[in-house]
């Protein structure tokens, strides 16, 4: 019998969005994703200018800060990742210069890429580097989200870094393993998405020996993300660049609608790097809440580097909390699960597999956190679109729109509802993973209980933290 997500939608249910002729025609055009990248690049040009011009002024009236840390971040966490997987990577303008340099052109197909085309070391083909990169970036959250110049420096570093590193390493190694701070969590959380890119009929790919999607042809590039498009098990490393749609001579690629979180049930290629990514993301959601929406002034002073000692304390505590404390507490519950379930199951396997229950919990925690940004602060956006460089413009007549929080009175209900839904989904995924991991069903039931207790405790903690 086919399993169902939340007891409602069969895990293998799919609706092929690209079966709609116009959708397929758009996806197969070489204008996709070039056009959205160029449009996005024009917005990022304004962001960069505003960041540079804004200097160290208050970020809440700066276009760069508002569009990166309010508009982009909220869209990313609340819309793009849960609904459209890594669609951001499809339209991201930051590595575009590096990629155009590799291809020595904008839209033309050139499979012999310019540059040194070095292979990325096999030992580093995982999320560890981006885990530390992202954690390191969050040390500067106090500056990034409040000082325009800090956002400018971050974005310019990514652009310049991508040009240099993409001239050295082949294809999208920069995005996948090296330099994108958000690439890791986009990959992990895209496992939650209700969309996917997959081969329509695996047998067609199996019979087709030439594998155009891997080596490229005159219609499209070899997969820039260096995956096997005919065998995408999970969304993690598919950057949705759409090249496989162009190269496939059998039109065998599809964008499917599917139930949420199905990739978390793929018992293949799970690893501790992704486990730690899940811990780090959950921990950062908690720490960010304390800094941005909490009432402890000393913590804000630490993150704001009011004193060097305070800032270093913040960095150390933040690191210990994310890298050791959360995994440590989780380990205790996993140990209890093994004790109750089956002591012959390797602890590492149990720890790794169950860590994927924190993916829905983490994404949902970020969505609940984002409500606390959206409702009180989004009115600033109306101001900055009219006067993006603080030069006294009033392009849309909204430059003097006052700060107006909306729905903040009912915001806690949105947060609680979201977190409880996250608990239900995490428990559902948790038991399915338990059944995969333990050999017998009664073992799976017993082994599930401590994990369910952990997930419930985290949810109660988050409800208390956010709303209590």
């Amino acid at each position: 019998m086919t399993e169902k997500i939340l007891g409602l939608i069969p895990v293998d249910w799919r609706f092929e969005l690209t079966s709609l002729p116009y959708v397929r025609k758009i996806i197969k055009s070489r204008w996709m994703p070039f056009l959205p990248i160029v449009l996005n690049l024009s917005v990022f040009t304004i962001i960069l200018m505003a960041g540079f011009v804004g200097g160290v002024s208050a970020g809440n009236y700066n276009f760069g800060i508002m569009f990166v840390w309010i508009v982009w971040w909220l869209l990313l966490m609340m819309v793009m990742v849960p609904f459209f997987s890594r669609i951001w990577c499809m339209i991201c303008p930051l590595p575009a210069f590096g990629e155009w340099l590799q291809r020595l052109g904008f839209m033309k197909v050139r499979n012999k890429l310019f540059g040194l085309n070095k292979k990325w070391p096999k030992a580093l083909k995982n999320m560890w580097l981006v885990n530390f990169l992202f954690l390191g970036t969050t040390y500067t959250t106090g500056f990034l989200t409040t000082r325009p110049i800090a956002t400018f420096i971050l974005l310019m570093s990514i652009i310049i870094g991508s040009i240099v590193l993409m001239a050295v390493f082949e294809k999208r190694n920069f995005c996948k393993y090296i330099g994108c701070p958000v690439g890791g969590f986009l990959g992990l959380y895209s496992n939650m998405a209700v969309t996917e890119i997959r081969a329509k009929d695996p047998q067609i790919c199996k019979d087709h020996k030439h594998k155009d999607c891997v080596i490229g042809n005159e219609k499209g590039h070899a997969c820039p993300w260096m995956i096997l498009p005919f065998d995408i098990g999970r969304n993690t490393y598919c950057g949705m660049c759409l090249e496989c749609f162009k190269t496939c001579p059998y039109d065998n690629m599809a964008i499917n609608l599917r139930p949420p979180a199905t990739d978390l049930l793929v018992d293949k290629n799970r690893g501790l790097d992704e486990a730690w990514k899940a811990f780090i993301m959950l921990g950062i959601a908690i720490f960010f809440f304390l800094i941005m929406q909490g009432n402890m002034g000393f913590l804000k002073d630490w993150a704001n580097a009011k004193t060097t000692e305070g800032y270093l304390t913040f960095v150390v505590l933040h690191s210990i909390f994310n890298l050791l404390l959360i995994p440590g507490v989780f380990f205790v519950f996993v140990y209890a699960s093994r004790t109750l379930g089956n002591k012959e199951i390797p602890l590492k396997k149990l720890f790794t597999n169950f860590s994927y229950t924190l993916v829905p919990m983490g994404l949902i925690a970020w969505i609940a956190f984002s409500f606390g940004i959206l409702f009180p602060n989004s009115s600033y956006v109306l101001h900055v679109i009219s006067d993006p460089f603080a030069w006294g413009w009033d392009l849309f007549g909204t430059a003097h729109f006052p700060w107006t929080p909306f729905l903040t009175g009912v915001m806690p209900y949105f947060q609680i509802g979201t977190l409880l839904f996250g608990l239900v989904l995490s428990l559902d995924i948790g038991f399915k993973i338990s059944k995969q991991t333990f050999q017998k069903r009664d073992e799976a039931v017993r082994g599930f209980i401590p994990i369910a207790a952990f997930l419930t405790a985290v949810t109660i903690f988050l409800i208390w933290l956010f709303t209590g």
Partner: protein
Amino acid sequence: MKNSMKILIMVLVLLAIPIVILAQTEEPKEKVITINAQQFSYTPGTVEVNRGDRVTIRLISTDVHHGLYIDGYEVSTDARPGQDGSLTFVANNTGKFVMRCSVTCGPFHPYMIGYLKVKPDYRLFGSIWLAVGIFIGSILLVIRRQKP
């Protein structure tokens, strides 16, 4: 199946008892609270009152121009150094409400936050009750499915 449901209902009822006990409130009072605002926090960071209290907040700024806006109550005031602000309201809505600075006061301005807690917090108790209920329900569900 029936036994599982009975156990679930009994557990939820038992869990509800402390909520009812905790929900007992004191008589409404007149409360005057002084809050000091300084980049980028309020002191005290949390103000606790009971449902029905008539609350007057006196806002004192010790550095720059600050504001104070209370989510849910949608009331606000502001203060400059030497020029205090004040607001009064009846705490009819229970739960935790965020107090935010409403005047741009520096880089961390959007993060200048305090809490108003109006007891008893039915919302928090109810949410915890639901989360525990979901936990127990899920365990019962997987145990029930296990039986032939």
